[in-house]
Structures are given as C-alpha cells and as structure tokens.
C-alpha cells in the first residue's frame, strides 16, 4: 500500500532512484495507427539502486501523421496544474513542433505501457522533464535523418522548426508529415547519440504557454468525470456509513424503490476498521435512471447501523489530549546536540502550542465515476482519477479480475488536491455495475464529499525555543502529534511516519546547535489522507509563526533573522541526527541537494520585490515566511489591512520561487496564485470537526471556502532564473503562506495566532 503514497516513498528503496534512460531495446515500435500515422513509442528504464535496470515500461508516445499533425500523449492527470499541457510542451519543444499543430490525447491507466501515472506529490515535471526531452529529441533526430537521406546531406546540416525540417543555409524544407512514409523504414538512432537542446534553444520551455484545454473549458465542452454518458446507464447515489467502521444491520428499501425512476438498491460491503485507502465505505446504493430520482431514493432509505467503535469519537476532545501529550517526552525522531542543556542554560524560553483542524479537499467536482462491467468479464472505467493505475489495481482486486480486464480512462479532474488519488469511489462504481449488470455512474453529492473524505489530519504541536544571553537561538524542540496516513491502512500505526515528518518538521533547516524532534501517539478515528502539501501545512504554520516570535525576541527583523539562522551557504544532510534515513521526497541528495544558499536567495528576492522594509504605512502590516517543500524553495510576503468595515483584507501577496528550470512559467504563476487562495481558506475559513464519530459540517455553508471578496487581491509571483533540475509547484505555494499571513495579522492586531482557522 505504501508505494502508492508518494510521501512515504522513502520506505521503498526500489522506488527511490528514478533515473529514466531511453532503452534501445523496445525503443521504437513502428506501427500503423488508426490515425494513419507513425507511432514512436519510447520506453524508459528506471535504474534501481543497485544499478540493475528495471524496465518500468513507461511510454510517452509521439505520433506524427502524414497530414502534419503531431499527436502527443499526456500520461499524467490534469487536475488544474496544467500538466496535460506542460509535459507535451516539453516534447514538442525538443521536437521542433508547431504548437498549433499539436494534438494531445490522454493516456489510459496502464503502468506497463506508460510507467508512473500517479499524479501527486508535485513530481510530474521533476520526474518527467528529462524523459520528455529525450522522447522529443529522439523523434527530432529521426526526422532529421529522414530528411537528410532524402536531400543527400549530412544530418548535422539540418534543424527542425514549426513542424518542418530545414536545411541550414538554404530554402529547402519539408513538413514532418511529408517524412512519415520514409520514417517507416528508418534505422533507430543510438540513444547515446541523441543530443538534447540547450536551454537557450527552447521556444516554449521558460515561457507562458496557455493550457491546451482552455477553449473547451470556457465553452462548456470539456469532459469531466460526470460528463461521460453511456446507453442504459444507471445513476447511483450511495448512503455511506456515517461513522468510519459502521456496518449495516438491516434496511428497508421499499419506499426508495417506489420512487419513479429508481430501479434497484444494492449493498456495498465496507472494509470496516481499518477502512483502507482504496476501499469503499459500507453503504447502500440507490440506482435510478436519473440523478434526482437516485437522490430522492436515498432519502427514502431506512437503514439501521451498527455504528461501531468510533461512534463516541470527538475531534475536539482528541485534540486536547494530543496537545496535553506534548508536555511529556515523546519518541525522538531527530536529535542534534543536547536540547535539555540548552534549555537549562537559556535566558529566554518560548514555549508555544499550535492546533490545526482536519481539512476536507472539497474539490469543486465531487467524486463521480462511470463503470461498465460487461458480460465478457471485463470492465471499462471513466474516472477523474489522479492515479489510474491504483484505480485499475483496486478495481481488479475488488472484482477478482486480471489487470488486463480493467480499462481505466482518465477524464479531466475538477480539482484533485490528493482526494482523487484514492480509488474508493472507482471501486464503488465497478462493484455496482457488476451487480446491476448495467453501466453505472456513481455521483457523490457535496454532503457525501464533506462527510466521507480522506481528511488532512488535525494536529497538535508544541515548540520550545531557547535563547542564550547573547540572543542566539540555542535550542529547538518540536513535538508533533497527528493521526497518521498509515493508520488508514493499519490501525496500529500511532505515530506519523518519517515521510510525514519530513514534510516540514524533522527537516528543520536552520542552523541551531541543539535540536530535538519528537512525536507522540494518536489513533485515527476517520480516514486520513493527504491534502495539497500534506503535513507541511501544519508544520510550516507552527515553525514559521514561532520563527517570527524568535525574531522579535532577538530584536531582529524576521527576514534578517531567517537569513542569519541559515548561516553560511551549504548543503544540508541531516546525517547522524535522524531516526532512519533522510527521504528527500524520494530523491537522492546528490541529485537534489538541500542548499541553504538557494533558500537565502528566494528570501532576499521576496524582501526586495515586495519592498519589505518600506511597508510601514499606517493601517498596513506585513508578514513573512519561507519554506522549502517538494524540493522547491519558496519565500512569501503577505500584506494585510483592515478595510472600511473593519474586515481583514489581503491587498497583496509576493512569492519568490526557485523551482529550478521554470517549464511553463504561466502555470507556475497560476499555481502560486491559486496556492495563496487555497491556503487562505485553510488559514481562515475551513475546518472539519467530528462529534459522535460523524462529521459536523455538511456543505459549503458550513465547510467554507474563501470567496472573491475575501481573497488576496494581487498575487505577485517572482520566478528566479535557474538552470537547476526542475521541481514541482503544485504544493509548495501552500505551506509558507499560512504563517506569513498569521505573522502579518499579528503585526496588524498585536495578537499571535496559535490555532487554525483563525478569525480576525
């Protein structure tokens, strides 16, 4: 199960080293496609840690048609990051394609064919930048070889541009489409001879490229999960266990079946406790010819539940217990120096407790999926899934089918944020379609989504910071307690995993001589999952609001304080300090070092660009935080003021980001713009609580998302030029924003923020 959780990837050594190299074996498959085109299938190998190549069989397909169309396959899921545009764009750039003549088609879920399709953990660009370039460059080389043959010149005299091969210093040119026939008999180039373009040669990489689906979206033509329609399809709305672990004792479906349009009621067996990350909850599904009838039918069900052991669960009571537990010694996850002696010789001790709630993902598109189980024992799925392979495997497991019998088509996702990695809703549809002997669309309502999510865990943290007489920060003791993701699959997991701790806690980067990171036990009473930036959310909130207090205690400006505490430029290794190894988001430190110099640069940049020092105008206050996550360096400045009605307003936000080479700069900016908005909701409006084991909130009236009037007004995104390997930007905007906002609010009101969500 764990290899499906990107954040726990470090526990799977074979997953660690993702060096993709084109393999000559299976390098090229030439076949005539239905499109009448020429298919170029590129296999990438993943070299394991022992140098033993494992064929990962991920493929990125480039297909060139004789009518000069370049068809590129997007194999990662589009949930709003722009990845369906950005990865094909890399291939197109290497290829020298005319972007206007590129057609993108979405890959179905097939690990053997496409490799990793788990669109999560901000690693699509990080993992596939190089393979995409190689795929494009190989196709370019073949086109050039074909044209050079035709003209009787040396390939080195040719280049590609706008889907044509050009002969340098002449007017000779040929469309890609015109070479398709010649390509059928071409020799494969030796991968060792494939030369990638220099950064300066790229036309698309490093620029603002509009998303491929924009026109379809604005005209209402784009296909999301619920938009797929099949003949004779039944719509299912499911009454799920109100408490995790609850079981159906008995039910009466007579009234439901009497509703016109309702065809049948089908029970879904739930996993119980632990609920699992890939299993449906226990439930009773009402199938009908339309959604309204199915919804009405569900309302008419009478169900007697055995609510099980979680029925007395109160999240407020647990949170208080968790906070209390931090007063004791916990399980040490990182130790540097001797914190206790730093504390006993300290002249000032800051001891603070931080609380944060459960959060639901609340994607605008509630889960919706179509399954068509056929008489021949195969099933076809259409799903807005972030992880089509996991969905495929989970469906195969639940139905007892061989993997090839399950086909998973990926639609656009109306938001994901980690929710749609889990295949529970896909399994529901597959089970129902098999039982109903008809195609079934499972439609979650918003209430279903709020009540039955895989929540971001609530958390209690205590940080004790010590200063000596010279106002030097001498000690840092961070206690963190939260029900772990792992507990959703294994109830015995009472501590967060090292993976979750390296999301902004035990990878504490500041140069402090004495550090102790501790965890305490807490059990899961609901389904815990991962939400955009995961435990970075609460860790960054606690750490960077505490850093603001430390700066104040040291009499330093928060920016100067941070720069001072990073010390000399160096690469951090955490060696000899950690329980277990340092995961580094699944990458080797030599490939992606933790470099304090890069962090200091984004801090200096955001201070300069936001005019940090000049914000002393009456009524305005400014807050700062910097946080590296998912290998991307981010510094953030938030400016706040009170509007005419005394309400908090956020007129301006500045981000400086070092994500290595910026691939599609407009989509980097949009992720940061959206990240600030998303994080404003987490900071100020959203919280999930449980009473009697059930979620208290129901819909957007009680689980609130910020709306335009409360949202940050201007969000400036400063991308630092870089030639380093690219890293992801989906999640990194979220963590530093919340403490930067909290620190700004403190400047405005004089009140420190210790609990999320906060009101002003």
């Amino acid at each position, binding site marked *: 199960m764990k290899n499906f959780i990107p954040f726990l990837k470090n526990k799977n050594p074979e997953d660690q080293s993702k060096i993709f190299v084109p393999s000559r074996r299976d390098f090229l498959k030439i076949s005539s496609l239905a499109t009448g085109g020429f298919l170029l299938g590129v296999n990438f190998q993943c070299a394991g840690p022992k140098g033993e190549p494992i064929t990962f069989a991920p493929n990125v397909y480039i297909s060139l048609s004789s009518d000069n169309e370049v068809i590129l396959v997007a194999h990662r899921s589009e949930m709003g990051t722009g990845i369906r545009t950005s990865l094909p764009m890399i291939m197109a750039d290497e290829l020298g394609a005319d972007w206007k003549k590129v057609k993108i088609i979405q890959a179905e879920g097939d690990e053997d064919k496409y490799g990793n399709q788990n669109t999560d953990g901000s690693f699509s660009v990080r993992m596939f930048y190089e393979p995409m370039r190689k795929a494009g460059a190989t196709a370019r080389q073949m086109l050039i070889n074909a044209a050079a043959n035709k003209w009787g010149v040396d390939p080195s005299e040719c280049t590609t541009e706008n889907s044509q091969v050009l002969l340098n210093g002449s007017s000779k040119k040929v469309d890609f489409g015109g070479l398709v026939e010649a390509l059928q008999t071409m020799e494969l180039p030796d991968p060792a001879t494939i030369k990638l373009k220099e950064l300066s040669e790229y036309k698309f990489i490093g620029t603002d490229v509009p998303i491929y689906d924009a026109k379809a979206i*604005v*005209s209402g033509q784009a296909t*999301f999960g619920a938009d797929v329609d099949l003949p004779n399809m039944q719509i299912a709305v499911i009454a799920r266990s109100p408490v995790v672990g609850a079981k159906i004792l008995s039910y009466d479906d007579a009234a439901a079946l009497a509703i016109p349009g309702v065809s049948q009621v089908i029970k879904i067996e739930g996993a119980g406790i632990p609920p699992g990350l890939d299993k449906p909850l226990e439930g009773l599904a009402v199938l009908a010819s339309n959604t309204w009838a199915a919804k009405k039918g569900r309302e008419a069900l009478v169900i007697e539940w055995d609510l099980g052991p979680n029925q007395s669960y109160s999240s407020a009571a647990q949170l208080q217990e968790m906070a209390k537990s931090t007063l004791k010694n916990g399980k040490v996850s990182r130790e540097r120096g001797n914190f206790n002696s730093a504390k006993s010789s300290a002249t000032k001790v800051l001891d603070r407790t931080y609380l944060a709630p459960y959060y639901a993902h609340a994607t605008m598109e509630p889960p919706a999926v179509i399954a068509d189980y056929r008489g021949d024992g195969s099933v076809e799925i259409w799903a807005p899934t972030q992880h089509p392979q996991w969905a495929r495997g989970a469906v195969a497991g639940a139905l007892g089918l061989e993997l090839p019998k399950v086909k998973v088509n990926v639609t656009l996702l*109306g938001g994901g944020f980690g929710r749609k990695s889990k295949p529970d809703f896909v399994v529901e549809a597959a089970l129902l379609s098999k039982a109903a002997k008809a195609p079934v669309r499972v439609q979650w309502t918003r209430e279903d989504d709020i009540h039955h999510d895989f929540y971001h865990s609530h958390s209690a943290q205590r940080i004790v910071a010590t200063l000596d007489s010279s106002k030097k920060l001498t000690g840092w003791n961070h206690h963190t307690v939260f029900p772990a993701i792992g507990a959703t699959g294994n109830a015995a997991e009472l501590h967060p995993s090292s993976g979750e701790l390296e999301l902004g806690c035990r990878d504490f980067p500041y140069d402090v001589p004495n550090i102790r990171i501790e965890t305490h036990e807490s059990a899961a009473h609901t389904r815990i999952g991962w939400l955009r930036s995961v435990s970075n959310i609460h860790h960054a909130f606690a750490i960077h609001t505490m850093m603001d207090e430390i700066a104040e205690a040291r009499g330093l400006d928060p920016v100067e304080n941070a720069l001072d505490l990073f010390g000399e430029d160096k690469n951090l290794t955490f060696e000899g300090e950690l329980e277990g190894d340092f995961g580094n988001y699944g990458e080797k430190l030599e490939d992606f070092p933790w470099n304090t110099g890069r962090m200091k640069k984004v801090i200096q940049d955001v201070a300069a660009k936001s005019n940090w020092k000049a914000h002393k105008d009456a009524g305005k206050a400014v807050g700062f935080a910097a946080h590296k996550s998912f290998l991307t360096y981010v510094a953030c400045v938030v400016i706040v003021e009170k509007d005419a009605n005394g309400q908090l307003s956020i007129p301006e936000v500045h981000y400086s980001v070092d994500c290595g080479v910026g691939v599609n700069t407009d989509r980097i900016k949009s992720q940061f713009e959206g990240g600030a908005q998303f994080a404003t909701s987490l900071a100020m409006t959203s919280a999930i609580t449980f009473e009697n084991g059930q979620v208290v909130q129901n819909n957007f009236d009680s689980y609130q998302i910020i709306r335009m009037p409360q949202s940050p007004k201007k969000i400036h995104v400063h991308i630092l030029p870089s030639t380093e390997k690219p890293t992801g930007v989906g999640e990194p905007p979220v963590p530093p924003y919340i403490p930067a906002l909290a620190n700004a609010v403190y400047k405005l009101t004089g009140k420190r923020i210790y609990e999320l969500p906060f009101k002003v």
Partner: protein
Amino acid sequence: MALFNLTINGKSQQVDVDPNTPMLWVLRDHLDLVGTKFGCGIAQCGACTIHLDGNAVRSCQLPVSAAEGAKITTIEGLSEEGDHPVQKAWLEHDVPQCGYCQAGQIMSAAALLAQNPNPSDTDIDNAMNGNICRCGTYTRIKAAIHTASKNL
C-alpha cells in the same frame, strides 16, 4: 412526472420529469447539456449557474416547473463559437486551472456585464461572491471581467 416545455439556448425542448427536478439535472441528465456543473446542490457554489431571462441563477435550486416560459441560456448557448467577450477574455488571461467551476463563473460574469457594462472591483466582488473557485483563480477572473468590459 409531467411534461414541460422549455426554451433552452433558443431551442424549444420538451421533457417528461418530476416537477421538482432542478433544472441542473434536467439539463445534465435529460438534455445532455453537461457544460453546466453540479457543485453543491444548495446554491452555495455557483458551478451550476445559468441565465434565466438574462439573470444569473443557480440551476440546482431552480425546479423545472419554475423554468417553463422563461428563456434559458447555458454555457453551450452563451455564444455560437465560444467567442462571447467574457469567453475571449477568459482565454486572454488563461483563467482556468481545473476548469470545473468556470462555466458557472463565466455565466455569472456575463450576466453582470449585461446589466453593468462597466463594473468596479466592488461590483465584481458582489456579483461573483456566489461562485467558488477551489483552485483559486479569483485574481484572473476579476482581471478578465475588466478586459471583457472593455470589449463588449
């Protein structure tokens, strides 16, 4: 069940449904107009926004029985070629991220501009308050509405 005669995107349509069925599900399930999206079902998020006689309404709370006789416009009928000034401005600013809420956002924005061709920031805030975007495209939506206002 009852028969209802509806005028949608300039076309007469007849449906035989439960009179309480919200227009949202009539459009999506019975008329295959799936550009209008389901987001909350209680008129809190605006994903299902359509025009009823030119006014932006939440179709999840509009029973089909109340829609008879009115002129209904959905995202599919806002323009012939997806080239309404609002849609063009949306493309110019590359507004969408996941895109799911955008049909509703566009319908709210188009109704606002039809009534107020030159809205202030506050006018836009007020008109768009009922439309949630979880991806957080609010700054671009606002910029796009200003652009569209200039190109009406």
